[in-house]
């Protein structure tokens, strides 16, 4: 294993150091491991807090800023952060309007955020939580921990963040976050697994002719393995899984997401196939992102997330955002 790190133990601290140096719009609390908007808390605005294991950058720290998160708590690589971080972050962003916890549905994240929310309540901070669980690769049944939260987390953070900037109350921001999650579905495919630094080798092995379908963002193996094939067919496998879950129609927001080790060139090829698939189903990608947004270290592969838009969601998606990982202005020059 070769990584650009100083030591396995220093990964999170050193990353935070880089983030702090790179982004004067952020404030980094190294002691508590929280990344804040520089001027947090914002009076009267609902504070948005998310967090999760490191290794998914730019998620979540890269989405802290105007129009998105107020704070992010990075855990160790692929390990959910601890309640102390979330409590500290919630205190730091509460401008009197309460705090929304955006939690990806993993047992670890859920348990730690739950504990934090309880302790926040003890300290008089109003907290609402939204659970993101968009990954159709996992059966949502009594026999699993439920669906994983993956790409749709970005949708929830962006759209709920935009609503929070308008001064909407906590219950409304939480309801909308929930709605975005419900309207979103994702599916991921790996060509190779990433290497968790502490483990020192890829979390699973694939031969030169195999791909893994339905992977999550923690290097978990997927549900099935199949033979590698051309981009068009792989796109179809992924999109069929999404479409079988909720038939695609109307205007959609699409995230064609790289897992960290796949060139943008290939992501654009996949996006072309996904857009064609949507058209075939009578749906349209009216907004999209193509790139590395919700990654899994150096995993090679992609995930596709689709959110069925409403006018409100489109408007909030288009609202200005100013974070290291996502930024656009209200009136951007065109053409």
């Amino acid at each position: 294993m070769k990584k650009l790190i100083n030591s396995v133990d220093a990964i999170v601290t050193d990353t935070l150091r880089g983030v702090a140096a790179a982004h004067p719009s952020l404030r980094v609390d190294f002691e508590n491991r929280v990344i804040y908007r520089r001027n947090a808390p914002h009076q009267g605005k609902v504070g948005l807090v998310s967090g999760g294991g490191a290794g998914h950058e730019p998620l979540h720290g890269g989405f802290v800023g105007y129009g998105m998160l107020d704070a992010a708590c990075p855990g160790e690589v692929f390990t959910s952060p601890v309640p102390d971080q979330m409590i500290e972050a919630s205190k730091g962003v509460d401008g009197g309007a309460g705090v929304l916890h955006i939690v990806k549905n993993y047992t670890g994240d859920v348990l730690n955020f739950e504990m934090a929310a309880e302790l926040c309540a003890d300290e008089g901070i109003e907290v609402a939580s939204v659970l993101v669980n968009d990954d159709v690769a996992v059966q949502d049944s009594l026999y699993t921990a439920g669906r994983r939260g993956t790409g749709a987390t970005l949708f929830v953070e962006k759209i709920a963040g935009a609503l929070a900037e308008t001064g909407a109350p906590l219950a409304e921001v939480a309801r909308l976050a929930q709605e975005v999650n419900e309207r979103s579905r994702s599916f991921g495919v790996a060509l190779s697994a990433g290497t968790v630094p502490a483990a020192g080798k890829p979390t699973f092995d694939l031969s030169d002719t195999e791909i893994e379908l339905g992977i999550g963002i923690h290097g978990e193996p997927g549900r099935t393995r199949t033979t590698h094939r051309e981009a068009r067919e792989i796109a179809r496998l992924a999109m069929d899984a999404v479409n079988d879950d909720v038939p695609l129609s109307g205007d959609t927001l699409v995230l064609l997401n790289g897992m960290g080790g796949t060139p943008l060139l290939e992501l654009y090829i996949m996006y072309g196939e996904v857009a064609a698939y949507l058209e075939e189903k009578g749906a349209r990608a009216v907004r999209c992102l193509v790139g590395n947004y919700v990654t899994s270290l150096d995993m090679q592969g992609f995930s596709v997330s689709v959110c069925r838009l409403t006018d409100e969601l489109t408007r909030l998606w288009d609202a200005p955002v100013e974070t290291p990982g996502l930024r656009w202005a209200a009136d951007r020059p065109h053409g």
Partner: protein
Amino acid sequence: MDTSFFLAWIKEAASAVQAERDHLTQLDAAIGDADHGANLDRGFAAVRQTLADTPPQTPGGVLVQAGSALIRKVGGASGPLYGTAFRQMGRALGDAPEITPADLVTALEAAQEGVQKLGGAAEGDKTLVDAFAPAVRALAQAVRDGAKLEDALETATAAAQEGAQATVPLQARKGRASYLGPRSVGHEDPGAASTALIFAALRRAAGQA
């Protein structure tokens, strides 16, 4: 069993986790995300640190403090679960200076209940509960039967180890491994494996006392 007994247990558990760190991580790589060993090792290192910095005066104090440190340092699923386990044990023991085997059973039963309430896992779901529950049952039975503490803990450890081994053929229904569905079959659950280590550490602490 006094405060130093419980300090010895924690120390043994911490050493065992450190020694088996890579093994636990590799188990987690197979059906999870390859961090269980690193998580627990980080957590128990913090536990040792806090116990050294501010040594508690009662068995219950040791366990509550250890549990809090785990919650504070581990993260992941295992942090809140093991943290809750130790905290519940400690709370069950109150501030008693000396603990009987029957107290220990009660405390471990409280721990198990806390874990199951928090995580919602039943036996057979392929989690650490599959090692924890049989170990507690075996200990309770042995203590009821009037076995010597060391022997009772020997039985409990064996039950934990068997429980961990018995997770191999199971399909996971909780935690990260459940995402794999049928592909989770054929692998030992990492949390069950670490639970067995923790019971073995308890057995060793009794041997030293």
